[in-house]
């Protein structure tokens, strides 16, 4: 009986790994091709495109030329700009949105439903659709071509507020009531009790805010035209122009941007495993 059960588990485990490997293959092959292409001399990039063979993935000649040639361009600065904007948005945005989510979940106040409906509606408004009126607004505030133009419009995020509200509303009210009876202030309850328990939302919300900024293209393109404030996606896209595409640099800068964006995810999923293991021990 137990041998039978063990072999079922083994079969399930094998099926799981086979499935994961197949998915990973489909997801990674294009990226591997991208990275490999970024290591080829520009002349070789499309030399093997039309025939099936190992040379598609194994370069004849390796070079870092596409990477070293990025140093002289605005790319390093653009990575720094993107990181600054994305991290600031992430930290300040989590605080601002978690506070609002807490208020919607825990407090009773007038017009709460109307205001919450507005938050959701704002979350669903196509951002691309408001780029032009937003530009007019940000210009009248005198913020065009500043970091503030990139950060401020993205701090409040209806979806992140929604996530926090859902989480805080799901916690037992006795938790807050007990603390109130003990004389704790709301700020204290939020900071010391609610936020620490909500760490999965802090992380997912934080990643959401970070990725949104790191991915941003259309808004930074119009809002910060000067080279000092160019962000990473705009810098990458500058390799594509009417005169022709710098494929080598396009691939190398895309590879680097992808690696940077991967860091918060790797940190984040480590937290999950830790939590998973400890909750299993309890």
């Amino acid at each position, binding site marked *: 009986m137990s041998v039978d059960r063990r072999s079922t588990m083994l079969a399930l485990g094998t099926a799981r790994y086979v499935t994961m490997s197949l998915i990973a293959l489909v997801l990674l092959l294009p990226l591997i091709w991208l990275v490999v292409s970024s290591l080829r001399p520009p002349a070789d990039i499309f030399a093997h495109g039309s025939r099936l063979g190992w040379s598609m993935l194994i370069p004849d000649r390796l070079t870092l030329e596409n990477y070293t040639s990025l140093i002289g361009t605005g790319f390093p600065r653009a990575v720094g700009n993107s990181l600054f904007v994305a991290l600031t948005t992430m930290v300040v945005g989590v605080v601002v949105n978690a506070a609002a989510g807490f208020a919607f979940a825990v407090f009773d106040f007038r017009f709460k439903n109307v205001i919450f409906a507005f938050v959701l509606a704002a*979350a669903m408004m196509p*951002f691309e659709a408001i780029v032009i009126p937003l530009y007019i607004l940000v210009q009248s505030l005198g913020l065009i071509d500043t970091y503030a133009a990139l950060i401020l419009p993205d701090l409040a995020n209806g979806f992140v507020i929604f996530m926090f509200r859902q989480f805080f509303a799901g916690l037992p009210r006795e938790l807050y009531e007990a603390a109130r009876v003990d004389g704790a202030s709301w700020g204290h309850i939020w900071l010391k009790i609610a936020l620490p328990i909500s760490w999965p939302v802090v992380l997912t919300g934080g990643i959401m805010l970070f990725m949104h900024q790191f991915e941003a293209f259309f808004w930074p393109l119009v809002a910060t035209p000067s080279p000092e404030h160019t962000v990473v996606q705009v810098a990458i896209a500058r390799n594509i122009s009417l005169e022709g595409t710098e494929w080598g640099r396009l691939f190398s800068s*895309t590879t680097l941007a992808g690696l940077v964006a991967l860091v918060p995810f790797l940190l984040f999923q480590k937290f999950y495993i830790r939590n998973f293991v400890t909750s299993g021990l309890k």
Partner: protein
Amino acid sequence: MTALTDRASAPVAASEAPRAARRRSADPMQPRTLVLLAFLLPALAFLVLFRLTPIVIAIGGSLFTQNLAGETSFGGLTNFAQLFGDERFWNSLKVTLIFNIIINPLQIAIAFCYALLVMAPGKGVTFFRAAFFLPMTLSTGLTAVLWNIMLDSNLGPVNAILEGIGIGRQPFFLSEHQALGTMIAIATWKGCGYWMIFLLAGLYRIPGELYEAARIDGASRRHQLVHITLPQMRRPLAFVFVADTAINFLFFAPVYIITKGGPNGATDLLMFRAYENAFTFINWGRSLALSTIILVIIGVIAAIELRLFRDKEGAEA
């Protein structure tokens, strides 16, 4: 919208009596106005300034029309009337709806499979989690650039592989019949890892005791999935569906970069129409009218999605 706010009180409803008592004794649970404002105001002020104000400008602008000389005048609903009489608009609406009806359930189903696969710890699972998320680190525009060259009929490795294994070269974005499906495929390739994270967060919040109890009762894995995992995942699934719909209605960069709405209108999504009207035809009024229509459609679909998930919750309670 009301569906959502109802749910706020759902966990509290069980303890209705103490809540009423709390109201009467007025009350450590009610914050002073200043405290309430400190919590709410920063987020609300940003939303009003950077979302509501541009929306008002947009909706207001949709009521203005332009003549050939570029002069604007108040035209009431003229922009909408012109759109509704335009065949291209109806084609775009059809393409947008088909795109969304396929891509949203597809992405969520795949993302859910990803999450279930990488949930349990194991050898190399970290690698697979990272692998599933990796396409997400490419921006939408770069995904389009990468796949456009990958699927190129002469230079692209995909067609070389297809020819090599005997399927033969495919036109992909060049074919009226394949273009939209290819769009859906590359968006799915990129997007599922992102939604996997939200679903993973939801899966980890399901109390382990539920599964333990089920195992002791001898419930099969499928039984556990249907009777524990799925009901417990209602909230994360509702959230992910609404968020995914909003994002896919804005699907734009690949259309702009690869197909420009073609071939023959096959990928002419509403968002691309809105962009084209603004930046190619410099017709702001009509572009803003299209944005308004997209907003209304997203609102309706989100309301339906939330209602679907709430009904199940009601049945359980």
